[in-house]
């Protein structure tokens, strides 16, 4: 009676705690987002990049906030109408803004650069002037006038030797790819035309609410556009859309799989316990436990990463197992408190060993993993407390009907001799060895998520029209000052051209538009030398150029050097298309970016970066993939270490033989999972390792319950039901389109099946004399 009174008091205290946690979460959720969805926040900053991190983050964030819309049609006139309608629709609610100045005067370009003409030269002109072959220079000028193309006399009055025109033409890659039509940049080929519209947002694309508004805005605008302009095809690309797609796909899959598994579990409960109330009572109890854990995590970390929360489903799975064991004993006619007494030790043992194993996950140097470890450990303890304190009351007065048919048949596995079982296990493990050796881990972060076909099409369409698709990898150029950074960038771009002309064409260099100060000084010296050479000017007069015009131009070339600096560049019209490559000042460092496209093997580029001052090759995909590989390997060690830890902690209670008897199915499950994955060529990655941890955590509980319950009928039923619910809840994830989720599901499906069979067989063995 005294115990019951204590229990009631503790249950009430727990209720107060649950209510306090709920109140706290409501209060905090009004102020900020409680969920963190940015995958990169889950991963650690790359150690060797600590000093560059602010610049990398600035560039990433700048990229994330961009949206590029491509409109295609056979009729350019229709495109401009569609562009105006789309821009109005997208910018109407001010979440997207057009980053294009439609009123920009194309002639402004020329006027912005003209004051610096004395220090700007194309590479071709600089080479000729550098060689001192002024005859070749005269010939080039002459050919300029003899070209069968039209020449703008207005421009030639300021630039009679074509020097600035050549510079600007070279900077734009030989010519502007766009033709301006009613203020829109139009691209054309023989068959159709396209408009590329750049937009940006100031909202955080990873914020779920903001993301939903951003992607919703694009979808709505597209829908309207298709109605108004049925012949215009619209493609859109941007981080906001990728995030939206990933979140929607995960939500869709989780809800399909989630609803499917809840229905299946509900049917299982109904079939077994003949009432939905036990499941309801269990979910309420477990929900309360998780709520307390979630509030504690929010109090500690400010927000909880989505991955940590998803991983918490493991905790839910374990919690439901405790409830199943409770109901198995209730079904056998025991009272609520008697049932509790039967399960408190095995579930407590299971909870402690699993919490310990989860806690060890905190040793993995992922900030996200620390959250996963803490959330799982705290969640498990909290759920266990909740089950122990609340379930007897929740299930109070619940009448459980006995199963109307002889259920023992499907539970009683034919007894098997210990030696036969040992041989069977050994043979199975040996059969798996070749499979384990064939295992090909898949750590490429890009393969872990499925790309939506619409986004993939949009990528292809953009590349088709622009011929340039920036890689995720890029060069980050730094310097102590703006001049320093630009000179470093100039050096890199020069080297890139020498490295391979093809690659250079695919590099987007700010120095094409804004040469480094050192290069500008060299250009100025070359032009000053040209101005002093009388024979050149005589030659130009012979060509027929106006003497007054030539004299004026010659005097201009001899004037004081005027270097085009970053401020003047950013204020110029050229910065609209290229200004994003300049990142600016970060503490004592100035940084900019050189984008590359079509890079296959990046070894050469990495080597180049290592040889040049202030040049860094940043390849987030490779680096994160390498990190995934590293942590998959560490995770594998962790699984092994946690298995040893479990073995040792179990040995304290059951002795070494008993501990091995309880835990060997887990070890076998790990081997079978690896072997089958190898044979079948299934993806094996970090998420598979995480699933193995789940299999170990839950699988060990099966052994403990059967051991503690003396393999009694209720324990066997509960273990079977636990495994069935786990397979329904997690095994269905094997059907997911997302490789990460699928890997997780496959491992749970195989692993839990093996553990269940192994555990049941262990407690069905007979000794040589036939005793069980």
């Amino acid at each position, binding site marked *: 009676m005294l115990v019951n009174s204590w229990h009631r008091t503790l249950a009430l205290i727990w209720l107060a705690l649950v209510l306090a946690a709920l109140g706290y979460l409501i209060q905090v959720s009004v102020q900020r987002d409680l969920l963190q969805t940015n995958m990169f926040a889950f991963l650690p900053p790359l150690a060797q990049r600590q000093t560059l991190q602010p610049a990398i983050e600035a560039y990433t964030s700048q990229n994330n906030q961009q949206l590029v819309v491509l409109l295609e049609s056979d009729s350019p006139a229709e495109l401009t109408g569609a562009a105006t309608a789309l821009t109005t629709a997208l910018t109407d609610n001010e979440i997207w803004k057009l980053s294009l100045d439609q009123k920009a005067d*194309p002639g402004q370009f020329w006027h912005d650069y003209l004051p610096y003409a004395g220090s700007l030269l194309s590479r071709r002109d600089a080479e000729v002037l550098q060689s001192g072959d002024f005859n070749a220079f005269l*010939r080039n000028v002459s050919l300029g006038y*003899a070209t*069968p*193309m*039209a020449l703008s006399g207005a421009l030639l009055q300021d630039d009679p030797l074509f020097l600035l025109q050549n510079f600007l033409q070279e900077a734009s890659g*030989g*010519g502007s790819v766009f*033709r301006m039509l009613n203020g829109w940049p139009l691209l054309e080929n023989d068959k159709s035309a396209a408009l590329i519209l750049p937009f940006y947002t100031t909202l955080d694309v990873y914020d779920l609410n903001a993301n939903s508004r951003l992607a919703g805005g694009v979808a709505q605008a597209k829908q309207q556009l298709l109605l108004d302009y049925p012949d215009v095809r619209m493609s859109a690309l941007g981080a906001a859309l990728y995030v939206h797609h990933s979140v929607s796909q995960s939500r869709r899959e989780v809800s399909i799989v989630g609803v499917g598994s809840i229905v299946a579990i509900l049917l299982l409960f109904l079939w077994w316990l003949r009432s939905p109330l036990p499941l309801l009572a269990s979910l309420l109890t477990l929900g309360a436990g998780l709520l307390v854990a979630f509030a504690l995590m929010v109090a500690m970390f400010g927000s909880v990463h989505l991955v940590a929360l998803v991983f918490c489903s493991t905790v839910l799975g374990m919690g439901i197992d405790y409830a199943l064991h409770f109901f198995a004993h209730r079904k056998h006619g025991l009272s609520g408190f008697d049932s509790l007494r039967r399960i408190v030790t095995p579930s407590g043992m299971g909870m402690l060993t699993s919490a310990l194993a989860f806690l060890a996950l905190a040793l993995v140097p992922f900030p996200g993993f620390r959250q996963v470890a803490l959330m799982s450990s705290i969640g498990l303890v909290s759920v266990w407390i909740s089950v122990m304190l609340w379930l007897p009351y929740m299930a109070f007065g619940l009448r459980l009907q006995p199963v109307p048919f002889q259920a023992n048949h499907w539970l009683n596995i034919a007894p098997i001799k210990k030696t036969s079982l040992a041989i069977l296990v050994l043979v199975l493990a040996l059969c798996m060895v070749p499979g384990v050796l064939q295992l090909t881990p898949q750590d490429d972060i890009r393969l872990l998520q499925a790309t939506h076909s619409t986004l993939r099409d949009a990528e292809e369409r953009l590349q088709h029209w622009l011929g340039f698709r920036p890689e995720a990898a890029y060069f980050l150029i730094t310097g102590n000052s703006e001049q320093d950074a630009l000179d470093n960038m100039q050096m890199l771009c020069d080297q890139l051209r020498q490295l391979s002309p093809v690659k250079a064409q695919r590099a987007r260099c700010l120095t094409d538009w804004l040469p480094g100060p050192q290069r500008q000084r060299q250009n100025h010296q070359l032009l000053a030398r040209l101005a002093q050479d009388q024979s050149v000017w005589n030659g130009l007069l012979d060509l*027929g150029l106006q003497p007054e015009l030539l004299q004026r131009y010659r005097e201009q070339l001899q004037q004081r050097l005027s270097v085009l600096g970053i401020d003047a560049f950013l204020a110029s019209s050229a910065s609209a298309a290229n200004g994003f490559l300049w990142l600016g000042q970060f503490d004592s460092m100035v940084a900019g970016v050189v984008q590359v496209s079509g890079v296959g093997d990046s070894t050469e580029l990495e080597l180049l970066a290592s040889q040049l001052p202030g040049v860094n090759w940043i390849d987030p995909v490779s680096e994160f993939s390498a990190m995934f590989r590293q942590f998959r390997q560490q995770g594998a060690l962790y699984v092994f270490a946690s298995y040893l830890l479990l073995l040792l902690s179990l040995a304290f209670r059951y002795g070494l033989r008993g501990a091995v008897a309880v835990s060997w199915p887990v070890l076998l499950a790990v081997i079978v999972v690896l072997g089958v994955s190898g044979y079948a060529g299934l993806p094996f990655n970090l998420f598979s390792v995480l699933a193995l941890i789940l299999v170990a955590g839950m699988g060990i509980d099966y052994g403990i319950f059967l051991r503690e319950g003396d393999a009694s009928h209720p324990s066997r039923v509960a273990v079977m039901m636990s495994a069935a619910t786990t397979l329904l809840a997690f095994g269905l994830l094997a059907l997911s389109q997302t490789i990460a989720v699928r890997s997780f599901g496959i491992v749970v499906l195989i692993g839990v099946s093996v553990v269940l069979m192994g555990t049941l067989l262990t407690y069905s063995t007979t000794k040589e004399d036939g005793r069980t």
Partner: protein
Amino acid sequence: MTRRLPALVMMLYVFCSPVMADQASMLAEIRQRLQQQTDQFDFTQERQMVVLARPMVSSGRLQFSQNAGLCWQLSTPYTAVMLINSDGIYQIEESRRKQLMASGNPVFETFSHVYMALFRGDLVPLQRDFTLAPALDANGWIIRLQPKPGSALGWLREVVLEQRGDVTRLRLQEHHGDSVDLRFTPVVPTATGDQLSQSACW
């Protein structure tokens, strides 16, 4: 005035001619005539510009290939070879190509279209950027091309394509006075078996 007289006479003749075919049929007729011509020409280009004290004259030979483009072999004032194809303009030196202007440049796009239309004989595609005013008679034809409003060719006043007898002309007039006058005379192999010079472009 004397220089403009033949053009005026021709214009009067064209406008008073009973053969007032519609634009499409005139373009079809011009196409037929153009397609009968040879693919090699001698050319003379006279450029008048404010920045030039006197007209700059250049000349040479031109060869047209449906697939490879236009090969300009300049002989005065300097010898040089230039190739115009759908990718851009290249200067060819010692069999190596240096790109002078790439496709995408509005000037290139316009002029490569004009040249290709002229030498292929199909002038219809020019209607994308220009308003065409064709006229023809038994001895030749003339087409005035005026940039459409809103196009990137606002600086151009007019392009005139004309054929009188053997000579084809392309005249280009800018708003502020600069102009180019190109004359193409077909090169025909003689009966003695003179072969046309091998193109330096391909």
